[in-house]
């Protein structure tokens, strides 16, 4: 859940739109209180328009489906409480940092993948669409090329254009 919250913040949706609470079967009053309080909170945030966040949400979805993030989340306990295959134990803080760094990177990649869409784009166009700095875009684009998800298509004038690679 911390990962999803971080993602919602990254996507500028706001993490308070997601709420996780524990209510036992015997706590009907607590449940009613939570629903009242939280609906009020969401009500104050106002209606959510998915159309305004299409790119961001699609990118977030890509992150949550990515193998890297899935592995990292799934191995949480294994790595911080027991040990990895090299008999190393990572302390939870370092691990948290690692995960949030990975989430940011994957999210940027997701944004770029969404921005490219079906027609060739230059780095500058992608930066404009995603709101990321040009430098970041070219770094992530590099990652995507290495991973075989995007490739250089050719020059249009003097501008390099990139396309998605079929999975």
């Amino acid at each position, binding site marked *: *859940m911390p*990962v*999803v919250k971080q*993602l*919602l913040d990254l996507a500028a*949706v706001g993490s*308070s*739109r*997601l*709420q*996780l*609470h*524990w*209510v*036992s*079967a*015997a*706590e*009907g*009053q*607590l*449940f*009613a*209180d*939570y*629903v*009242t309080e*939280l*609906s*009020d909170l*969401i*009500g104050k*945030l*106002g*209606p*959510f328009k*998915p159309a305004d*966040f299409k790119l961001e*949400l*699609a990118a*977030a*979805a890509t992150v*949550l*489906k990515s193998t890297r993030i899935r592995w990292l*989340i799934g191995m949480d306990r294994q790595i911080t409480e027991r040990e990895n295959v090299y008999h190393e134990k990572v302390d939870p803080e370092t691990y948290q940092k690692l995960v949030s760094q990975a989430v940011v990177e994957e999210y940027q990649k997701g944004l770029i993948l969404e921005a490219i869409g079906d027609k060739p784009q230059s780095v500058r166009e992608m930066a404009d669409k995603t709101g990321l700095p040009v430098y970041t875009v070219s770094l992530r684009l590099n990652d995507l090329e290495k991973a075989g998800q995007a490739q250089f298509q050719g020059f249009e004038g003097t501008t390099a254009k990139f396309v998605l690679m079929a999975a």
Partner: protein
Amino acid sequence: MQETYEPKILAFLCNWCAYAGADLAGVSRFQYPPSIRVIRTMCSGRVDPFYVVEGLQNGYDGVFVFG
């Protein structure tokens, strides 16, 4: 306060905890707003992070997970 806007909220409730809790709230007639749409899951661990994003994509204003 004047209520004009009622948020639409997706709620995932664990069958054994919160769903029973919600049932109890109903049986005991505690008042709570009608803004939530409930999906009962066999365990709140069953809720994939991706469902949250999907819920938002489909136009819900918020997502609750109660376990």
